[in-house]
């Protein structure tokens, strides 16, 4: 008897909440199992239809002596192959993807708040940050690719009615990233720094002498500039969004950064897949011909 009175005295609110939660719930069988079954059937049918309609590609037998032009990696790695055109191979092929994966895995350890959990973009400025991040990522990547492929020179020639060769010689260093190295008269002291001979004196430790000459302008183009841009531009975006009061919480910044990352990933993949022809030249998709051996 005592137990009953205690229960009724203490629990109406608790029991009401439990009942409300129960009312919000459905049984997995049939409600969820049905959805899963339909999804599986639709997917099986569409995959079968696709496989009947389109054949998997098969070219000639592998031949190490015949290199197709261009040789491309599978599409999901073409973003890295695209990066390869613009920076040092160690950066593009290994360091950038490794850092990107670690950063991706670290997201929940950085943004630990419960804001916006369990609902699509439910924090106040989520959609705005998504759109801005994606647009900035897309436009920024496209601009950088256009610049490094010297397409701004083509555009300038079109707009002014000049020939591409009329690009002012004084501005040659602005043709692309590599021009920063080639078109500027760097003093020879910094294009050939005897690093192994003067700085890293391993021979003093009894180790073999390292034969390494540093070329500072090359280092600038292949490593310093890409790293600065890849770290600096996202930081700049976050800073501007923060100053303008668009990104206020960690979740806002995460959404902007993640959307920017996805946009860059997608743009690089599409450019690498559809816009790169022979010699990995930047072309419109209709001008890209199948690889020639």
């Amino acid at each position, binding site marked *: 008897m005592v137990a009953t009175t205690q229960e009724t005295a203490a629990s109406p609110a608790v029991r009401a909440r439990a009942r409300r939660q129960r009312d919000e*719930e459905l049984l997995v069988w049939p409600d969820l199992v049905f959805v899963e079954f339909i999804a599986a059937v639709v*997917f099986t049918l569409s995959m079968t239809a696709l*496989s009947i309609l389109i054949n998997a590609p*098969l070219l000639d037998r592998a031949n190490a002596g015949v290199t*197709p032009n261009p040789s491309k990696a599978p599409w999901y790695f073409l973003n890295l192959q695209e990066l390869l055109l613009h920076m040092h191979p160690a950066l593009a*092929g290994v360091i950038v993807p490794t850092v990107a994966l670690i950063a991706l895995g670290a997201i929940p350890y950085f943004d630990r708040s419960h804001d*916006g*959990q369990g609902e*699509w973009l439910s924090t106040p400025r989520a959609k705005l940050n998504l759109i801005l991040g994606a647009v900035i990522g897309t436009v920024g990547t496209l601009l950088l690719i256009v610049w490094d492929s010297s397409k701004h020179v083509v555009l300038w020639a079109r707009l002014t009615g000049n020939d591409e060769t009329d690009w002012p010689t004084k501005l040659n260093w602005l043709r692309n990233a590599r021009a920063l190295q080639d078109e500027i008269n760097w003093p020879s002291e910094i294009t050939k720094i005897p690093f192994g001979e003067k700085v890293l004196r391993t021979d003093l430790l009894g180790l073999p002498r390292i034969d390494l000459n540093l070329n500072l302008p090359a280092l600038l183009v292949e490593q310093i500039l890409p790293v600065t841009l890849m770290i600096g531009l996202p930081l700049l975006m976050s800073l501007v969004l923060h100053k303008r009061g668009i990104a206020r919480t960690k*979740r806002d910044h995460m959404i902007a950064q993640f959307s920017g990352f996805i946009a860059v990933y997608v743009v690089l993949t599409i450019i690498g897949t559809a816009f790169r022809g022979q010699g990995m030249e930047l072309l419109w998709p209709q001008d890209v011909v199948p690889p020639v051996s």
Partner: protein
Amino acid sequence: MASTERPEGRSLGDRVYDMLFHNYVWQSIFRSGYPNTPRNQMLVVATNVFLHLHPTRIHRTHVKITHTYCLGGLSFFLFLGLTITGVLLMFYYVPSVERAYEDILALETDVRFGILMRNMHRWMAHGMVIMVLLHMMRVFYTGAYKPPREFNWVVGVVLLVLTLLLSFTGYLLPWDQLAFWAITVGTNMVGSAPILGEPNRFALIGGFVVGPAALIRFYTLHVIGLPLLAAIFMAVHFWRIRRDGGLARPL
């Protein structure tokens, strides 16, 4: 006259139902009755090894297709489909430089439904990469990586890498120009890493160029090594979803 007074017998449907679902053999397989009452519907989920990946009840918003678009489930479904078509392809494929390409040609011309199996395996593989990426985006934008699910997001990133590696190792197997040069380009990227790049590349392709050693290594990784690893991480991934209380809910 007598017919109106005769007690109503059990209908044919009832008797067939009993014969099918209340017999000794059926009940030795499925302990719960046919899931047409709430009790049996919960029991069928809780006592079935496959269905018990699910809880017995689920919040009504999570059944809405627009909440998840089934992306994680479809990734898993594609993994299963790839396993089935992959096993069938293994019947006909020998991973040697002499035979690989001829086997693919034979598969396309001599084997009944061979080309369908190969096409399905190929398109499902591409589909799985896309699904896993989309699933990652869904989890991010619904904030489902937040406490207590932080580590499951990390497991998911590992599964993304495993998916890419599974696709990449399978890419070499047809041993055509597309496969050969894609893997050459891809493994050259690995080789460009400072210090560890070249040894890693050598270990991966078993030599300085993509050749017979690379083919057998990629094949072994593709059909047993990576799928086992992926299965283990998937088990952890699904288990943790259940332990953390199912899909994320607003607090």
